[in-house]
């Protein structure tokens, strides 16, 4: 049992080293690495539907990662790199799209729905208050009537 565990562990460690070395990216300046990581997690693989460039192993993602690395080495800004790619692959590849006339619905709808919900809540709240108020009044009316009746009954005795 212990042997099997240690063998499994050895295989796991070994393969992770193998896969790790395949993805190693070299930069002339280490400060580019964090920007590279941010870009490849924020950009979407055009071929596969719901993976970013970092997670995808599609050939096109590999090519685009290399393209991004090349552009970073050319001292292009993040904005320029994104523009370079969206002008070819459209805004589809941005996991965080810019706010513009085609995306205002996308960015605005959560706030619009929140507003609608707030209005509905306010309305319901107000209506409930009125109902409770009139109910209280009815109860008070009844109670005073009962008290009156009881009183008049006592008087009759």
């Amino acid at each position: 049992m212990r042997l099997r565990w240690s063998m499994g562990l050895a295989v796991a460690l070994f393969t992770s080293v193998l896969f790790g070395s395949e993805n190693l990216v070299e930069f002339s300046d280490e400060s580019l690495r964090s920007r590279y990581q941010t870009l490849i997690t924020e950009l979407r693989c055009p071929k596969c539907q719901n993976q970013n460039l970092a997670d995808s192993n599609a050939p096109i993602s590999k090519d685009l990662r290399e393209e991004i690395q090349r552009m970073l080495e050319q001292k292009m800004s993040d904005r320029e790199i994104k523009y370079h790619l969206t002008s070819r692959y459209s805004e589809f590849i941005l996991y965080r799209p810019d706010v513009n006339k085609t995306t205002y619905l996308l960015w605005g709808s959560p706030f619009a729905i929140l507003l609608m919900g707030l209005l509905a809540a306010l309305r319901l709240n107000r209506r409930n208050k009125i109902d409770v108020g009139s109910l209280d009044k009815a109860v008070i009316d009844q109670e005073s009537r009962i008290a009156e009746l009881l009183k008049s009954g006592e008087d009759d005795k």
Partner: protein
Amino acid sequence: MKVVGGSSLNRLALFLPLALFAALTIVLLLGLDKDPSELPSALVGEPFPSFSLPALHDADRTLDERDVIGEVVLVNIWATWCFACRIEHAMLNQLAEQGVKVIGLNYKDNREAAIAWLKERGDPYAFSVFDEQGRLGIDLGVYGAPETYLLDATGTIRHRRVGVVDDRVWNNEFRDLYAQLMAVQR
């Protein structure tokens, strides 16, 4: 006691959830027919990107965008590893026979295999550009072969098809536009 839904406005408000539900249903129904793997084309209306790449059949011959621009032309991205390209190939042969100028972009392929492939299945291309690294592919926004672009005589991309061009696609998407562009060219 107060009468529920006294004003007509209040009564209309009761139908609001139903109206919202109906609207959502229509939007989602329309969405069913869409192909989620199809990207909107960023390059339609844009000029064909500049490039400098060798010809497939002659490694010493360098081609650039000036070889592509000048007349109405189809640019077809293909590769021997691309299974759908085999299905498409007969259609391209047929179009070339009808006099449509087709230029090939051999995408991330092996040169010998690509030449053998054309020898075996017929070569519909006026010439093929050999894009081994896929650099022109990135400039075109290619994300899978086959893809087909229709260029007008000024080198502007007028239509893009991702996936196989068959009879139906040609008739629906290309034929009229192609005829129109050819009429302008003459």
